[in-house]
């Protein structure tokens, strides 16, 4: 990371972009899985059984964390652009990161 970019707001920007791209790539996969239901209950159940493998659950955890990061980061950006300015923008970025980690942790505990 270049020194001029190595600060929390730039990291927040990067996380928002990367999580957005990752979620956009995931969506076709999500619709593919839903589409399996059209082929019958057995096909979908077969896939869902496969999805209980530890590696898939780990990937799901990453996905949930990215989704939470994108949601919280998006709310941070909306607040930055549409609400009166606050000088504690780094705190907002830290809160967004904390929300994402907590959401990921909650998912990990639930599984």
């Amino acid at each position, binding site marked *: 990371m*270049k020194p*001029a970019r190595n600060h929390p*707001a730039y990291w927040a*920007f990067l996380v928002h972009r990367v999580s957005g791209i990752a979620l956009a790539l995931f969506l076709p996969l999500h619709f593919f899985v839903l589409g399996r239901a059209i082929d019958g209950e057995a096909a979908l159940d077969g896939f869902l059984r496969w999805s209980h493998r530890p590696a898939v659950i780990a990937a799901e955890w990453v996905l949930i964390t990215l989704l939470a990061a994108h949601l919280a980061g998006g709310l941070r950006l909306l607040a*930055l*652009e549409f609400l009166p*300015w606050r000088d504690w*923008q780094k705190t907002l970025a830290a809160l967004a990161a904390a929300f994402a980690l907590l959401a990921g942790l909650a998912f990990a505990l639930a599984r």
Partner: protein
Amino acid sequence: MEVNELRVNVWRGGADGRFQQFAVPRRASQTVLDVVTYIQRRLDPTLAYRFACRVGMCGSCAMTVNGAPRWTCRTHVDRVARDGALEIAPLANMPVVRDLVADMREFFDKWAKARGQFTPTRTRADEFAVVKPASRQRMEADAGIECIGCGVCYAACDVVKWNRDYLGPAALNRAWTLANDARDGGQKARLHAVAGDAGCHSCHTTMSCTELCPKKLSPTRSISGLKRATLAIVLRGEDGE
């Protein structure tokens, strides 16, 4: 090389130049500008660089120091040197004239494109405009008015790198201070000028400008103000006029 010496790599030549290493004696309270001046006065008088006031007022001595744009006259070597070494280059996002001198024409031309000129509405025969210091508009203008035009924010901005037409943080900050000037008569043209593809809505809020501004201003704050002001015009249906 002595322990009390700095290893300083200095950019020489134009865009296709290279770094040249110098050894500079380490001094107490030494600034990066002191280092560059030492090289030019004692080691190589052909070194080109730009400075004027030496006290953080004129905005002419900004350079890239160890990878980040800084005002060199107020940047102490203690703060930026890594393992006794400095790398000094001209500001990024601007053409190189020679050595450490960047061509700032495009940077200032963009101030003009952002309608950074005051448009008076009164003559000397009129009464003074009364602007209350505690008014919201005055406070918004105050938050951005101390810009010295050093170009640090412009050099730090990735959006400028990605979109050469982007007006940049300093020009948009100037536009926002004028947008909050109750005496100015050029508001509609100004907001129209900053609302295009090269204007405020291109900002990705990476906030490197705010992080590195030597005057601790927040161009991101100004740009978000312009975003809200231009959106308000669209919502009021005044954008077609």
